[in-house]
C-alpha cells in the first residue's frame, strides 16, 4: 500500500516538473543584440537590433532576407519605450545577449545618466556589452547598417571594437560598470569610443549593401567621446585618443612611426606597455606624473639612411619615439585640461589615493586646480627585435 502511494506521488510530481513559472521558449524571444538610444522632443527613441533567426540558423545562407530586424519605439522613459516595442514586434525583447549599446550624440550631450540606471537595475541585462557614441549621426541609423563578413552588425561592432582595442588602440571597449564607476567618481570622468557611418544610410539598410566587395555604406570607429560626468562635451581625434590610452596604460599593441635621420619613416610595433599615473603635492599645488614603459619591435623601415646593423641606431629610434610620444601625450593632456576642463585621466582619483587630506579639502575646486595643474610625462621605450631581417632592401639599393 505504502509503495503504491509513493508511486502515485512520484508520478504526479512530474506534472510539477514541467518548467519554470515564467518560462520563455526560444521561439518566444527576440534576441536583442544592439540597442540604440536617441532623444527627440523630450522623448526617448530606442532602436533595437534583433536577430532574424531563420536567416542566421540555416547553413545554406538563408533566403537573402536581412539577417537582423530593427524595431523602433518612443517613450518618456527607457523602460516604457522598451516595453512598447511589443506593439510592433511579435516577441518580447531579451536583453541577456546584448552586445553593443549606442548612444546618439544629441542624447549624450544632454546626459546619459538617466539611461544607465534602467540598464543596471534590470536583472536581465548583463554587463558584458560595450558602449559607444554615434558621431555625427543618430544611434538609430548606426544600427540600421548591415555589415559584411560578420552577418549580424552588432556582433561585427562588438568584435571590431575588441580586436581594434587589442591591435590598434585608439578605441576601447567600455563596459557599463566601468562607465558608471567613472561617472560617479569625483576625480575621474568617462570616455567612450565614437562610431561613425561612412556613406549614405539608405544604401546601408538593404542586403545589397553587403553583396558588393566594398560596401557603399559602412561603420567605423572614430574618435573618442569625452564626457564631463554624464554629459558629452567634445571629441578627440584618433591621435589624441591613442595618447589618452597610452597615458592610461590601456594600449595592448599599437603602431607608431619615427623619422629616419635623413628622411623617410621607420615603423615601431608596440607589443607591451605599462603606465603609472599619480598626482603629488609639490609646494602646496597638485602636480601630475605619468610614467610609461613601452616594449616595441621594428616592424617596417621605409628609408635608406637607417643602418640596423649599427647598435647606435636602436637608441636613436628609442629616443625619437620617446620624444614623439611625449609630445603627443602632453598636448593631449593640455587639450583635455584647457579646452574640455574634464579629468578623463583620473588625476583626481590618484590624488585621493596619495593625499586623501588634501583631496578632501580641495575636491570642490578640483576642476579649477586640474585645468592649471602641470603634468610631467616620461616615456621609456625599449626596442628589442627587428623582425626577420636586419637591414632594409632599400638600404642595399644605395
Amino acid at each position, binding site marked *: 500500500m505504502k509503495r503504491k502511494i509513493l508511486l502515485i506521488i512520484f508520478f504526479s510530481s512530474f506534472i510539477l516538473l514541467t518548467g519554470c*513559472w515564467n518560462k520563455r521558449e526560444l521561439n518566444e524571444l527576440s534576441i536583442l543584440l544592439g540597442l540604440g538610444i536617441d532623444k527627440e522632443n523630450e522623448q526617448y527613441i530606442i532602436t533595437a537590433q534583433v536577430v532574424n533567426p531563420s536567416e542566421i540558423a540555416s547553413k545554406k545562407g538563408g533566403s537573402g532576407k536581412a539577417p537582423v530586424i530593427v524595431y523602433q519605439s518612443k517613450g518618456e522613459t527607457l523602460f516604457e519605450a522598451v516595453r512598447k516595442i511589443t506593439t510592433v514586434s511579435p516577441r518580447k525583447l531579451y536583453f541577456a545577449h546584448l552586445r553593443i549599446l549606442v548612444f546618439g550624440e544629441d542624447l549624450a550631450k544632454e546626459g546619459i545618466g538617466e539611461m544607465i540606471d534602467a540598464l543596471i537595475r534590470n*536583472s536581465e541585462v*548583463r554587463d558584458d556589452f560595450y558602449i559607444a557614441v554615434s558621431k555625427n549621426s543618430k544611434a538609430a541609423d548606426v544600427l540600421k547598417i548591415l555589415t559584411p563578413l560578420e552577418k549580424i552588425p552588432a556582433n561585427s561592432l562588438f568584435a571590431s571594437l575588441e580586436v581594434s582595442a587589442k591591435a590598434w588602440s585608439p578605441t576601447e571597449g567600455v563596459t557599463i*560598470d566601468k562607465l558608471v*564607476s567613472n561617472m560617479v567618481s569625483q576625480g575621474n570622468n568617462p570616455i567612450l569610443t565614437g562610431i561613425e557611418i561612412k556613406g549614405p544610410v539608405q544604401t546601408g539598410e538593404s542586403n545589397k549593401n553587403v553583396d558588393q566587395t566594398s560596401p557603399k555604406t559602412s561603420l567605423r570607429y572614430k574618435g573618442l567621446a569625452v564626457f564631463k560626468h554624464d554629459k558629452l562635451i567634445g571629441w578627440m581625434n584618433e591621435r589624441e585618443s591613442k595618447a589618452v590610452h597610452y597615458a592610461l596604460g590601456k594600449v595592448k599593441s599599437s603602431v607608431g612611426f619615427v623619422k629616419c635621420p635623413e628622411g623617410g619613416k621607420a615603423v615601431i610595433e608596440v607589443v607591451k606597455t605599462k603606465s603609472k599615473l599619480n598626482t603629488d603635492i609639490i609646494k602646496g599645488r597638485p602636480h601630475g606624473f605619468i610614467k610609461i614603459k613601452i616594449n616595441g619591435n621594428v616592424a617596417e623601415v621605409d628609408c635608406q639612411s637607417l643602418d640596423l646593423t649599427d647598435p647606435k641606431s636602436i637608441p636613436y629610434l628609442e629616443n625619437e619615439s620617446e620624444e614623439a610620444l611625449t609630445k603627443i601625450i602632453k598636448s593631449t593632456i593640455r587639450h583635455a585640461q584647457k579646452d574640455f576642463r574634464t579629468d578623463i585621466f583620473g588625476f583626481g582619483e590618484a590624488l585621493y*589615493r596619495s593625499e*586623501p587630506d588634501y583631496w578632501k579639502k580641495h575636491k570642490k575646486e578640483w576642476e579649477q586646480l586640474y585645468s592649471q595643474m602641470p603634468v610631467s610625462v616620461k616615456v621609456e621605450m625599449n626596442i628589442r627585435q627587428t623582425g626577420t631581417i636586419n637591414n632594409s632592401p632599400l638600404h642595399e639599393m644605395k
Partner: protein
Amino acid sequence: MLENGKISPHQYTIMIAFFIVGGSILYTPSGLVHSAKQDAWMANIIVVGLGLLLVSLFNLLGSRFPTMNLTEYSEKILGKWLGKILSFLYFIYFFLSLAVFIRQIGDFVIIQILPDTPILPLHILLIAIMIMGVRYGIETFSRAIEIFFPIIFLLLLIFIISIFPMIQFQQLQPILDNGIKPVISAAVKSLGTPYLQLVLFLMVFPAVNQTTKAKKSFLLGTIIGGSVLTIVTLLSILCLGTYFSENLQFVTYALALKINIGGFWQRIEAVMAFIWFISIYIKITLYFYGSIICMGQILDLKEYKRLTFPLGLITLVLSLIINKNIVESDKQAEWWTSFSLPFGLFFPLLLLIVSKIRKKGRY
C-alpha cells in the same frame, strides 16, 4: 533530553562555518562598505576578532553544562519560570531570524533569477526541505553537511581564483583615509549578522560528543567562516570598487556575473547561487531546529518531531509578512544588531554570572 543524536567535533566545525557564510556571503560587503568604504575588509577582520570573543563566552557557558542545551540550563540557573520566560524569548528570536532568512532567499531568487515567479512556491519548497532536514534529526543532518562541504569548498575556491584576473589593487587606496573610527563602527554594527547569531549553537553544543574538542571547533569554525567573508569583501572592493560594492543588492552574485576568462569561462553565476543556497539552507535548518528544541523544552515535550509541521506552517506565513518590501529588508540589517545584542551577549553573560553565584554546573 529531546535530542539523542551525537555529532563529531569535525561536523560541528563545518556546521559553524556554513552558518557564518550562509546568511552573509551575499550581504556582508555592501553593509560594511556603506560605512567603512574601501577599508571594509579591515572591519571584517575586526569583527571576526569580536566574534571569537563572543564564541569564548559561549564556550564558557556551554562547557559548564556539557550535556544540556541553552533552554535546559536556563531553567536550572534561573529557576523554572524565569528560565521558561527566557527560553521563550530565545524562541521568538530564533523564529524571527528564521523567517527573515527564508525571506532573504525568496527576495534573492525573485530579484536575480526568477523575476515573475510569486514568492510563495519558493518558500513552500524551501520550508518543505527544511522540515525534512529537522525531522531526520541533527545526526543525519550533520552528515549531509559533511558531504556538501568538499563540494562547496571546491566551488568557492574556483570562484575566488576566477575573480583574480579582475583585481585592481588601487581600489583599496587610500587606506584608512577617514581614520579607524568608521571601520570600528562598521565592525560593531555588523556584529549582529552573523556573529551574535552564533548563540544558536548553544542549542547544538550538547550534541557534540567531545566537549573539549567542541570548544576548539567552535573557534575554528568561526575563523573559517570569518575568513571566507573577509576574502569575499576584499574581492568585491578590489574588483567592483566602492560604488558598486555599496549599492548592488547582491554584490557577490554580481561579482560572479563578471567572471569571464578567455571568452569561455564565463556565466558561472549559478555556482555562486548554488554555494549560497546550500549554505543558507543549512543556516535556516539549524534555526528551525533551535526554535523547535526551544519550544519542545518550554512545553516539556518528550519528542520534538510533532512540532515540525505546525511551526513550519507558521514560519511560512511569518516569512511572507515579516517585511513589506525590499527596502524594509535592507533597513532591517541596521537595527538587527541592537535587536540581537541581548540574546547574543547580555543573556549568556547573565546566565554565566548567575550560574557562578548560585554555583550551578561544572567549574
